[in-house]
């Protein structure tokens, strides 16, 4: 930041620009710090994104869509379920078990907050 401030000073931008840069950098720092770590992880972000455009997806559909393994999908969907971001329903179709996932209201808000964060980070880094 000091280097940035001195660079701004060298180009004659003055204290106002320096203050703006500092504010933007602070916003970037705050934005990065307050990121939702639960959906920041790639596979969990993919699960939430996929469910945001489909009312219900089964385990098999999600696995195929995200090209992942049973174990990975189970672990990460459990974390999202524990956080209340997705709801899981286990049923039987004949004798075959069927696990269905859907995004909860809280999960949708979390995705929206995450998107807002990303956009804010982009704006802040641009203005910095």
């Amino acid at each position, binding site marked *: 930041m000091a280097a940035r401030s001195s660079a701004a000073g060298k180009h004659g931008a003055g204290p106002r620009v320096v203050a703006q840069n500092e504010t933007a950098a602070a916003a970037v720092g705050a934005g990065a710090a307050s990121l939702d770590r639960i959906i920041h992880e790639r596979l969990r972000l*993919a699960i939430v*994104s*996929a469910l945001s*455009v*489909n009312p219900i997806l089964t385990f098999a559909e999600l696995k195929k*869509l995200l090209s992942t393994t049973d174990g990975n999908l189970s672990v990460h969907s459990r974390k999202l379920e524990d956080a209340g971001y997705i709801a899981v329903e286990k049923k039987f179709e004949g004798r075959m078990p069927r696990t269905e996932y859907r995004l909860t209201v809280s999960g949708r808000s979390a*995705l929206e907050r995450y998107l807002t964060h*990303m956009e804010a*980070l982009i704006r802040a880094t641009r203005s910095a």
Partner: protein
Amino acid sequence: MGAVRPIRPTAEPIGLHDQAMDNLRFIRHTMENAGSFTAVPGVGGIVVGATAFFAAFAAHLSAGPRHWLFVWIGEAFLALAIGLGFSARKARRAGNSLLSRPFRRFVFAMAPPIVAGALLTVMLNNAGLVRCLPAVWLLLYGAGVACGGAFSVRIVPVMGLSFLVLGAVAVLAPAVWSDALLAFGFGGLHLFFGWIIARHYGG
């Protein structure tokens, strides 16, 4: 004292801006892959249905097979323009691109039966078999919508199957029913399914 050098040269750290952009791209890509194309325009379907009724009426009053064919070909181009226009409008309103992956998949799945229908139209017209065209159009349009509908909301393949059933009826029906069947299909089915799509899938 010498300067400390890292054992392995490290890559430049990725900036926050690039990470954020990459995350947004990832979310968009995942949504596009997972989503069905919902820019099938319900309102557009209603408008196409209405124009098809006029076309059926005009075709019924036509002087001969040549005039009859011109009326329906004109209606096909008009319906295409209306469908594309309303799809673009609906996609724009939803903040999506009409050229998104789901739309491209929808179009690529729908195109082969439609192209086959256009070529068969030329062939059957040249062979003097214009009376076969209603069944061919209804069947191939139905096949196209059913195939494209695999990448769309569930009601779209149902619409395709309805056209296929009507096409099957047209195969067995007498030639004098042609305009009525085309009016029922391109008019009635578009109006009915257009209304459902407009009501339940955002316009």
